[in-house]
């Protein structure tokens, strides 16, 4: 009996030893063959994301050399309309699914408020390489893509795609001698022709150009964003507010009444609606796509839209005017030239299990070589040592205007109630443009009142 027990004991010890050896071996193998996957959620069909997806396989090799193991990048490209909803839901549920979120700049408030994303300040301070990268960004980019509260040195994101509003105009029409002669005869001044001519132009002179080229139904003066969708009408109207000397909020006290509905803003909103008369039928519903299509198909003389979306206008496969377009600064307003900043940052999820690899990825992304490749493929990089160079400004037709519009460009509020604040003005301003609200003052009074309600509810406004 004792002999049997002894044998069983030996067998048991043997099994334990074998299991321990197998486990140890598998751990060693796992360590040797460690492979990390970083997942990025981003918007499908959006140039910087599509370009990013094409570029990032190069990071795997870089990581292998730098970290000693490969790091794979997976892009989850979701439809534009679901991009915020899916990103926010993933963060709210503390999901580890995504390491990096390609975010819109205004979402920084919402994401940081709930501590769903990592505050980057301490990491930047600790890492001289990262610090040098951040210091190389424009202040406007640090404010827009990194900070919450807006404009403070509390950094939550890094700029992925820089962007601002630029003006695309038909250079063939501007250079046509008959057109030039006819214009001069009608308005008494020369048609602007060069980048510098447009730099000196204000909205009132530019309106004459729009009027001149409005020849329905074949050609219209311009196409601009008026749609209620997402932030389309807001981007443009707010640019006019700022350029007319107005603002959208008291950034210290969060008071909206008296600022949103100021006389300057009323005049700017009226003017924006007035410009519809130089645009194709249905322009009151135009967003980015419609503007680009109208321009590419030669239906409009100009379009005021983002530098980031200009690529299809210059693609002969999709555009009838690919070799006939000049990109310039949009006109000055009544007081100054201050337009909306576009673009998107990316943020690091609090729930990511690969934070070390994410920082390595960021450092790789902001290397001059990768940023240049990004620009070559149609993206708008952000590092100044690259974008301030003459070489960069000549690379893509929109690059010069993109860089020169950065100083003075502004962003929306980065508040956690951003989506609510935005919808209010999208609704009220679109109601005015579509004729449901009789005048701009009423539309802006309602906007101010509803936005103050939201700010009180969130306890920003006392």
């Amino acid at each position: 009996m004792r002999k049997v027990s002894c044998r069983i004991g030996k067998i048991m010890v043997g099994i334990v030893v074998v299991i321990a050896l197998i486990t140890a071996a598998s751990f060693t193998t796992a360590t040797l063959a460690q492979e990390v996957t970083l997942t990025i959620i981003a918007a499908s069909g959006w140039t910087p994301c599509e370009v990013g997806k094409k570029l990032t396989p190069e990071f795997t090799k870089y990581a292998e050399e730098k970290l000693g193991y490969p790091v794979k990048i997976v892009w989850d490209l979701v439809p534009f309309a679901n991009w915020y909803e899916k990103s926010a839901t993933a963060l709210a549920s503390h999901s580890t699914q995504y390491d990096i979120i390609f975010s819109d700049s205004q979402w920084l408030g919402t994401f940081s408020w709930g501590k769903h994303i990592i505050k980057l300040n301490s990491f930047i301070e600790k890492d001289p390489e990262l610090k040098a990268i951040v210091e190389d960004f424009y202040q406007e980019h640090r404010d827009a893509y990194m900070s919450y509260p807006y404009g403070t040195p509390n950094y939550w994101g890094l700029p992925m795609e820089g962007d601002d509003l630029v003006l695309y105009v038909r250079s063939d029409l501007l250079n046509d001698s008959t057109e030039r002669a006819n214009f001069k005869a009608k308005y008494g001044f020369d048609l602007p022709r060069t980048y510098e001519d447009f730099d000196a132009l204000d909205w009132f002179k530019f309106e004459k150009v729009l009027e001149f080229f409005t020849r329905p139904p074949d050609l219209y003066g311009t196409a601009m964003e008026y749609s209620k969708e997402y932030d389309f009408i807001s981007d443009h109207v707010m640019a006019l507010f700022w350029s007319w000397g107005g603002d959208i909020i008291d950034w210290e006290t969060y008071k909206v009444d008296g600022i949103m509905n100021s006389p300057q803003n009323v005049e700017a909103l009226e003017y924006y609606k007035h410009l519809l008369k130089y645009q194709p039928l249905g322009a009151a519903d135009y967003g980015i796509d419609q503007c680009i299509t109208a321009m590419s198909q030669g239906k409009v003389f100009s379009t005021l839209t983002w530098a980031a979306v200009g690529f299809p206008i210059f693609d002969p496969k999709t555009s009838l005017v690919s070799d006939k377009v000049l990109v310039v600064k949009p006109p000055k307003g009544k007081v100054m030239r201050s337009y909306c900043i576009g673009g998107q940052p990316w943020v690091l999820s609090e729930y990511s299990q690969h934070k070390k690899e994410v920082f390595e990825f960021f450092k790789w992304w902001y290397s001059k070589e990768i940023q240049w490749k990004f620009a070559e493929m149609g993206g708008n990089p952000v590092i100044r040592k690259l974008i301030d160079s003459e070489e960069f400004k000549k690379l893509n037709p929109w690059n010069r205007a993109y860089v020169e519009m950065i100083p003075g460009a502004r962003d929306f509020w980065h508040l956690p109630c951003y989506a609510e604040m935005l919808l209010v003005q999208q609704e009220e301003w679109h109601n005015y443009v579509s004729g449901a609200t009789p005048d701009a003052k009423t539309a802006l009074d309602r906007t101010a009142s509803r936005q103050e309600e939201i700010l009180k509810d969130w306890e920003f406004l006392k």
Partner: protein
Amino acid sequence: MRKDHQENFIKWFFILPALAFFFAWNIFPLLWVLGLSFHKYSIMTGRPPRFVGLENYTRIFGDPYFWDRFRTTFTYVFVAVFFEFVIGFGLALLFNQEIKGKKIMLTLMMAPMIIAPVATGVFFRFMYEPTWGIFGYFLDKLVGLRPQFLQDSRLALPSVILADIWMWSPFMLMMTLAGLQAVPDYLLEAAEVDRLSWWTKFRHIILPTIKPVLVLALLLRTIDAFRLFDKIFVMTGGGPGTATEIISMSVYRLAFLFFRTGRGSALAIILLVVAIIFTNIYLLLLRAGRKA
């Protein structure tokens, strides 16, 4: 005694899984939403829910924009369902006759109903496009007008309703036709023998017989129209301005765009109550009809 016990056990054995499923998927979430509706809570802020009593409800009922959306929703539901009913009923009376090519025509008539609402929305959006849409093209040729159907705040709601009528009139046709074909032949034959007029026959024989089916069809369409979201979302996004902003879009925005979980829950509960009220009104009508 033992047999009864055994039978009871078997009954519960089969009923319990369904009950458990029903509780887990319907009752529990409903109670959870009801509970949330009394709290100030946002899933994004990371703060715990704070009990606020009826505040979410009072805020909703005190908000003029909420009533505006309710008015738009009711207009949409009543106008759309009314015309769907009238058109569907008329077509059903037509197809209840023996006509040539009836089967093919009926099949074609049903087509809109089986298209995904999102696709219908996109089709109509294209057709309403003012510069190259087919409606604008013909109106331009006929009367020299190119209306901005979805951009003009006065035309947007009727245009969206028209798309709904196109899509759902076949449903009314199908339901009514099924009811008409179930009218007993002997009653109709007796009416023929008695030489009753078409109207008398319709009022005293056909209508009472098909009334339950009609009420059911109206009930289903009303509830379905009330919770409509996708078609309007792709056609107008609630615009221009707020011209086609219906209540289901507000629920979506509150819950999944603003992440105001508490207030979104309160609005969902209000919608549920409205749907229950509608259901009961229809059922009362049905019972009253039966008694009469």
